[in-house]
């Protein structure tokens, strides 16, 4: 039972990170209708920028951890958001009205560019950082000596995710930008006729998605203590799986899918085998989609005749 509770905590933390990335996939899909294959690599870039900012701040002699964290968060969000914006401008905007495989291939190409760009720029080796946030709480200690640990980083990851989700939900449901986004999701031409700047709204979607991916990158860096140039691919596929599992285009679905994938992966590694954890996650995706062809919270597709 204690083991189960511990795994539940670990799974929820991992799921939060996947969920944050999955939101980026789902938002872009909802508005532009394309799979942004490069999104996982944007997450990886976010992790790298957080790492480099950390290094600079520490070598400047800064010691106050909350200040460092805040600066790193803001810097990595800002620069990664600019990456998202640039990628949309270069690779996706010229293909906005093209047939639907073209932007997808362009996105795959972009993903190769980003992976290899960071490999060339930062080298292929794993980049570790020393643990910044240490300590935690012992929730429960059983008689046979097994302890349920809740580390401060885990608390931070979950709290950050909840805060960001709250801000994000407010953004989509209450602000002008959110209204524009929902309008573009319904019908881009009609939205444009009614005075919505479609180009800007789509750019902002990419910017927000990339900023959330940067937060996920920072959380990953703090939680696992390392980044490498290839981590975007696996995390990206998992998050994409999460988005599809939750029903692509649905924001609560993305978070739910993220948590589901995180929990499946953690429990499978804990009880069965670590080697087959990805196989389990993908197999469950296939099984869910067989019975719910549009994901857990997806709307059924209307077939136009």
């Amino acid at each position: 039972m204690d083991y189960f509770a511990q795994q539940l905590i670990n799974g929820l933390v991992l799921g939060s990170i996947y969920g944050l990335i999955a939101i980026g996939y789902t938002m872009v899909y909802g508005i532009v209708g394309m799979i942004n294959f490069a999104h996982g690599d944007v997450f990886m870039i976010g992790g790298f920028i957080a790492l480099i900012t950390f290094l600079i701040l520490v070598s400047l002699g800064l010691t106050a951890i909350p200040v460092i964290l805040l600066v790193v968060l803001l810097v990595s969000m800002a620069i990664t958001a600019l990456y998202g914006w640039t990628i949309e401008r270069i690779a996706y905007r010229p293909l906005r009205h093209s047939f639907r495989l073209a932007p997808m291939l362009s996105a795959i190409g972009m993903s190769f560019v980003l992976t290899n760009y960071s490999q060339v720029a930062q080298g292929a080796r794993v980049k570790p950082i020393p643990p910044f946030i240490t300590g935690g709480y012992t929730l429960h200690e059983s008689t046979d000596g097994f302890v349920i640990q809740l580390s401060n980083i885990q608390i931070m990851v979950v709290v950050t995710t909840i805060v960001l989700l709250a801000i994000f939900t407010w953004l989509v449901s209450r602000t002008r930008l959110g209204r524009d986004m929902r309008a573009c999701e319904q019908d881009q031409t009609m939205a444009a006729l009614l005075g919505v700047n479609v180009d800007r709204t789509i750019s902002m979607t990419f910017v927000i998605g990339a900023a959330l991916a940067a937060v996920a990158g920072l959380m990953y860096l703090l939680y696992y203590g390392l980044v490498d140039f290839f981590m975007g691919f696996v995390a990206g596929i998992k998050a994409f799986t999460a988005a599809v599992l939750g029903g692509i285009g649905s924001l609560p679905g993305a978070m739910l899918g993220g948590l589901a994938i995180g929990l499946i992966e953690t429990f499978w590694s804990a009880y069965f085998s670590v080697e087959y954890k990805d196989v389990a996650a993908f197999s469950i995706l296939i099984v869910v989609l067989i019975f719910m062809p549009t994901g857990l919270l997806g709307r059924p597709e209307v077939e136009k005749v």
Partner: protein
Amino acid sequence: MIAPSTNTAKPATGIPALFKTAFINALVALVLFALMVGIRTEAGSDGQLTYWTRFGELASLVGIVFGGSIVIELLRQWIGPAGTEKLVPPVVQSGLSFVGRYLAPALLIFTLLVPVIFYNQRYILDLAILVLTYVMLGWGLNVVVGLAGLLDLGYVAFYAVGAYSYGLLATNFGWSFWICLPLAGILAAFWGVLLGFPVLRLRGDYLAIVTLAFGEIIRLVIINWQSLTGGPNGVSGIPRPTFFGIPLDNSDDGLAAKLGIEYSSTHRIIFLFYLILALALLTNWVTIRLRRLPIGRAWEALREDEVACRALGINTTTTKLTAFATGAMFGGFAGAFFATRQGFISPESFTFQESALVLAIVVLGGMGSQLGVALAALAMIGGFELFRGLEGYRMLVFGMAMVLIMIWRPRGLIGHRAPTVYLTKAQAISSDLVKEGHG
């Protein structure tokens, strides 16, 4: 990375506007590259990260973006809005379509003669075999994506199934290539059907993720099922193909000895070349024949409109399954060939990158166009080979090329195709009128 196209909305006019755009682009580039390029991190021997600055590289990159923006903007103003009419005059266009009619037979004759022309040029022959392998993979995937309109992101799984089928059967039971080849095809087709079942109800992007997941599952199982597949170490010592039972080696039973000619290692390469050429042409021939049969027409009907397809009484289940099975079978053949050519296979050869490469070949070729796929394979693999010296930069350049090609020709190289059915005269159909890959 280039950041030149930041002003697609309003074309800048005049020199000040030009410099303003270039300045903004350079500024964006500065922020993008400042940390990633300007500062290089490396883990030291004690696990401590060190870093050093590279402001020279950063400055030159920003300078390149600044200069590049000006050049691209000037070119854009000079040429005007992009369009084939302006770039290619009508005379040249009609000339090109004339050439196009004879390009396929000419290319085929040239391919047949490649071993004669480049005899003893091992490098060119190896490259030609590689290109032909991708031509075959492209033609195989074309059945699924180009004809049936089912977006498959995990095609490499069938390639892997074919390669491992042959590799394991040949090393464990000592079966010959000619028995294993059809078996590899059948096994891959079986996996195609197995993948087909869960995706029958899925459309579009759900289909894409399931095929991608399937490809990853196959690869992960190959890596982790150590006792069967050898895990990351792969399968080695896969026997070379024989000329219908006669080995192509230096022994007394070898083909060279039997024919009474002097042995040369080139014989085997040339044999492999003609083998993959025959397999590729088989794929092409079967595809062309199938397109004219009811099943091929059902595929194309499915691609255009699934609902109308069902209304006409076409069984979409069998249509989708046969498309997956046929495509997978050709992938399996190609995999078996790959295994016998390399003599060694490992999971590293069957990554998502390969799937993306084959899909890129199909889309770049102009989906559904057999000639286009062959030309795209030649361009992509040949182009890829040009950058062999720059190991780290190769995939970077490849990714950029993929993006640029898509922007330049989103419909692929061959934008027209021959219709399957026509009343009196065959007229080329613009690919804009064809729905592709909507699953």
